[in-house]
């Protein structure tokens, strides 16, 4: 086998051409990791939301809370079910909630759909991660709302601002965080919002807190067995996973299509570089063969060179992609058609995928030139100037 130092030193020797190729593959990797970071961030936003011991109940046949609606009687039946926990104050650990979509203007002047959630007092008890970062919680009966911190930034909403929601005007009294995808929502009191949207007495969903994930599964069975209810029940993680798949799946498809198209172009760049390397080193190849190196050693050496170039380009692209991590952005939830804000996540998986894509690009780009280098006749190679 030809010493490996021959391979990597040759890359440095012709560093100008090698760097151009490295950069062209590197930027493909950057785009690919960027799209995966979008999908990863979106998935994480949903994944952070679910508590496996919380059961979410919606009307049968609906995919999202905003499509669901049922009357107060059903909600009462649900909260009275065995297996629903009690809060420290002795109340039922449950929250009947109503969800509507409202159009808001973003800071950049464009419009977006925002999910407005009416929450019962139990809603805080079953979401212990809920945290007010500025201002305070809303108080029932006073026309107050709190806004997810990341959403507030995108809408330019501050504590003290007022907005019309339905028939009434509501005042922002706090910003909150710590509840995953809910961070893209506006919360107010169930009765206040229900009254403003003329939905009093109707619920979009009911959240029931069970003692444990296993107890939650039992509770789901109990809900399903109740003949008087036409509802479906699933754990929170299951519910958000469904939304996540629909939304992040589109990014993944887009990312893969983009990556494949760009990688094909980068393959040609890699092949061009390697063909240039082979042409420039024809006499060297002839010499190596004359010294006794076999065809497969020559092929292996050039192939390794292309792979090294690909791996280096992958690393370069991954480095370029690092600053993308934690960038705040938003998109439309493809199930609820409302704004969802999230942070890009350049996960190890996204980084590894990018480097893998670059390596494959190097492999495919280097294959033909390496094969060509090994097939030439020694006498022809030695004649090259």
């Amino acid at each position, binding site marked *: 086998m030809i010493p490996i130092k021959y391979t990597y030193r040759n890359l440095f020797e012709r560093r100008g051409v090698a760097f151009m190729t490295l950069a062209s593959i590197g930027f493909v990797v950057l785009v690919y990791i960027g799209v995966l970071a979008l999908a990863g961030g979106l998935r994480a936003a949903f994944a952070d939301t679910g508590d496996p011991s919380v059961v979410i109940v919606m009307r049968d046949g609906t995919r999202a809370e905003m499509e669901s609606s049922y009357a107060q009687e059903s909600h009462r039946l649900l909260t009275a079910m065995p297996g629903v926990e009690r809060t420290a104050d002795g109340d039922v650990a449950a929250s009947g909630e109503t969800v509507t979509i409202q159009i808001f203007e973003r800071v950049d002047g464009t419009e977006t759909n925002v999910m407005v959630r009416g929450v019962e007092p139990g809603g805080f008890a079953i979401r212990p991660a809920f945290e007010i970062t500025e201002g305070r919680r809303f108080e029932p009966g006073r026309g107050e709302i709190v806004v997810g911190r990341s959403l507030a930034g995108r809408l330019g909403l501050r504590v003290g601002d007022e907005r019309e929601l339905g028939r009434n005007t509501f005042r922002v009294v706090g910003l909150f965080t710590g509840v995953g995808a809910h961070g893209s929502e506006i919360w107010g009191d169930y009765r206040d919002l229900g009254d403003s949207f003329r939905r009093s007495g109707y619920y979009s969903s009911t959240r029931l807190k069970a003692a444990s994930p296993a107890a939650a599964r039992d509770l789901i069975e109990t809900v399903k067995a109740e003949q008087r209810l036409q509802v479906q029940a699933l754990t929170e993680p299951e519910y958000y996973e469904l939304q996540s798949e629909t939304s992040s799946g589109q990014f993944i498809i887009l990312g893969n299509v983009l990556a494949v198209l760009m990688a094909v172009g980068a393959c040609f760049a890699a092949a061009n570089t390697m063909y240039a390397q082979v042409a420039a080193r024809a*006499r*060297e190849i002839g010499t190596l063969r004359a*010294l006794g190196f076999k*065809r497969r050693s020559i092929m292996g050496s050039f192939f390794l060179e292309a792979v090294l170039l690909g791996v280096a380009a992958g690393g370069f692209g991954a480095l370029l992609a690092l600053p993308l991590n934690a960038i705040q952005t938003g998109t439309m939830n493809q199930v609820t058609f409302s704004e969802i804000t999230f942070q890009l996540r350049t996960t190890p998986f996204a980084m590894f995928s990018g480097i893998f894509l670059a390596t494959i690009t190097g492999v495919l780009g280097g294959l033909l030139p390496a094969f060509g280098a090994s097939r030439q006749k020694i006498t022809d190679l030695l004649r090259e100037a």
Partner: protein
Amino acid sequence: MAETVVQLRDVTKNYRRDAFELKVLQGITLDVEAGDYVALMGPSGSGKSTLLNLLAGIDQPTSGELIVAGQQVSRLGESKLALWRQRHIGFIFQFYNLIPVLTAYENVELPLTLRKSSRAARRKRVETALSVVGLQNRMKHYPRQLSGGQEQRVAIARAIVTDPTLLLADEPTGDLDAESGGEVLDLLGQLNEQFNKTILMVTHDPKAAARAKRLVRLDKGRLVASAPGGGTGA
């Protein structure tokens, strides 16, 4: 009686160019014995380099028998031929053909990496070869940091480091000034005289040819004369 290292019997080599067949070598019969130092002369296009390539096993004869180092070279497959080459042939090129990204030491070590030997054993051989050519103090230099004459001496060290049966030199002084060329010829003579290396050298230069023990002339692909050379090798 000395062992015969090269045996050529009625060797021909033809190349096909479009509809024409080019007869580059015709009926070459030649013996070279161990320890011999043969200069191969002839005008351009007479087939010298082709003959050298056949002897090195990097080209195949069209017909005839070609035995080098006891092996019928034309019967070997690609892979075995590569193995045979690294055991028996040391090649010295006109333009040195050193690998630019490797140091003098690494260039000389290159053929040894094809063998199973320890790093220490390789080091000993490389240092010996470089000291034979007088470049033990240039081991870490890259080819671009060496003069033409030094590069050719490194190339000679690379050719002898495996202790091959036959040294083939293709115009070894063709790219050098007179002084450096003289040094290279001194070195080849020394290898022949002191180390009993069998050398076959293609050259245009009568002064170089005069250093050989035997002179072989080629013209239009035929061997036209074989006579004792002027030199004793040294």
